């Protein structure tokens, strides 16, 4: 048997969902593995298979505590196992493991049931949280970048700033769910065992549209609620529109009077500059 064939067989057996009691599927024979006097071939594979599933589930537990609070621990476990079976990791880093969760969950709304909308909002927030944690920081806009100030100027938004239009106010719940939790890191060569974790009860969240910026400051993550107009300008800048076009769209759609809007614009731009959100395009 060639190396690649062996590795394909092993990987297929390894990544097959675990059965009752987290035992390896009885269908898995793993005849390419040598048994020893204490363990059958399948039992030897089971050590790896459990470690694989526990490591990935553990990573999802750490990255999505808010989703866990919304759907409950049992449903979360089921949902995560189904997600991982459909979307195994395609990246060398576990950091990217949940990158497909929002689109996957959108196609599997029956799993969170009547909590699908709030669950999707939370997943969007939690993925933005991950991106904000270690996303790239471009050079902050300085006075030298504003020499040609005018309607055709393009200003960028830091890549680590996430902009979200949400149907539920999931930010407060996420803050409670992740209190004192730090991003996980990869350890070296250690087998992963299942971990006991506390789950926060979400209670009932009432729908309320919010606009949110997920960003970092002094290497901590913050959620900043935005006004609708503020969100739209930032979104337009993110899309690469000029200042002139971004503001024109905002003026056209705004419910504020020109005087109020003008006052707010001054305040918003000052805040974005202070937060270091604006960068060169």
């Amino acid at each position, binding site marked *: *048997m*060639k*190396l*690649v064939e*062996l*590795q*394909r067989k*092993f*990987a297929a057996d*390894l*990544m097959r969902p675990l059965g009752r009691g987290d035992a390896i599927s009885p269908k898995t024979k793993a*005849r*390419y*593995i*040598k048994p*020893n*006097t*204490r*363990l059958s*071939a399948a*039992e*030897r*594979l089971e*050590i*790896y298979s459990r*470690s*694989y599933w526990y*490591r*990935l589930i553990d990573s999802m537990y750490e990255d999505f505590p808010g989703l866990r609070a919304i759907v409950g621990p049992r449903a979360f476990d089921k949902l995560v196992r189904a997600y991982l079976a459909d979307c*195994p*990791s*395609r*990246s*060398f*880093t*576990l*950091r990217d493991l949940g990158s497909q969760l929002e689109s996957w969950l959108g196609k599997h709304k029956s799993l969170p049931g009547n909590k699908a909308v709030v669950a999707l909002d939370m997943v969007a927030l939690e993925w933005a949280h991950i991106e*904000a*944690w*270690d*996303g*790239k*920081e471009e050079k902050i806009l300085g006075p030298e970048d504003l020499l040609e100030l005018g309607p055709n100027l393009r200003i960028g938004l830091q*890549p*680590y700033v996430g902009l979200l239009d949400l149907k539920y106010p999931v930010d407060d719940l996420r803050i409670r769910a992740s209190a004192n939790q*730090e991003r996980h*890191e*990869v*350890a*070296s*060569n*250690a*087998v992963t*065992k299942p971990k006991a974790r506390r789950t926060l009860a979400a209670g009932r969240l009432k729908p309320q549209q919010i606009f949110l910026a997920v960003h*970092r400051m002094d*290497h*901590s993550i913050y959620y900043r609620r935005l006004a609708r107009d503020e969100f739209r300008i930032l979104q337009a800048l993110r899309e690469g529109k000029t200042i002139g076009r971004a503001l024109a769209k905002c003026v056209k759609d705004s419910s504020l009077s020109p005087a109020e809007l003008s006052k707010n614009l001054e305040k918003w731009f000052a805040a974005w500059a202070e937060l270091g959100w604006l960068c060169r395009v």
Partner: protein
Amino acid sequence: MPANRFNGFTDYGIGIGLRIPHYDHILERKPVVDWFEIISENYMVDGGRPLMILDQILEQYRVVQHGVSMYFGSAEKLNRDHLRRLKQVVKRTKTPWLSDHLCWGSVDGTYSHDLLPMPYTFEAAKITARKVREARDFLEVPIAVENVSSYAEFHISEMTEWEFLNEVVERADCGILLDVNNIYVSSRNHSFNPYDYLNSVPVERVAQIHIAGHSKFQKYILDTHDHPVIDPVWKLYDHAIQRVGVTATLLEWDDHIPSFDEVHREALKAEKYLTVAV
């Protein structure tokens, strides 16, 4: 053998793995530590706190990079994006050598995030050695491969694990990160004499040594890095040092991580063996 071409001719002492729970202690109290081993993947990011912490550590300490996802033994090609990101960290840390495992972990672009066991075949040795060479040429830093703990063996194997290790390092002309705890764990899981393994290791290629604790189960031993080092592993370490000479040594502690001082104290137990070997 304090320094050789596989560890960049350095003479590092006893290090410990840099772990998140110890960040504050290290940055605030600046304890005296010979060097820190970092997991490269934790810093292969675009920005944010991980890189800020790394830069602060680099201001005070010597750092050596250890990887967990190069997968030299995977049949597929090396991931160029991975290598590019890794090289950025190498430039940042100026690591004198870089290590990763003698294992596989991905196939057809799907990742297991585990260190999976190799079949000990000549084909696998050839593929693995070629990838080690390619990585070294790209990264421009000496590479050492680490023997892993394993829980399975394959029917198609054509040699012992230590013969496979020798075959790979000779073909790749690379160094060895000798993990004596992994030798112990595998010797118990596969019923071989760990001293046979140690005695076959080409001493001139050993760049670094790992020690760690593990967990015993009824039918096998798991490499969990969540306990102190046990006496039989210290004895193996003693034997390794007698053969290899004074070598950069690192204690791994990755789960149920105690205080920094406790981890450091455990690591410094290695001094007893290193002093005798001088």
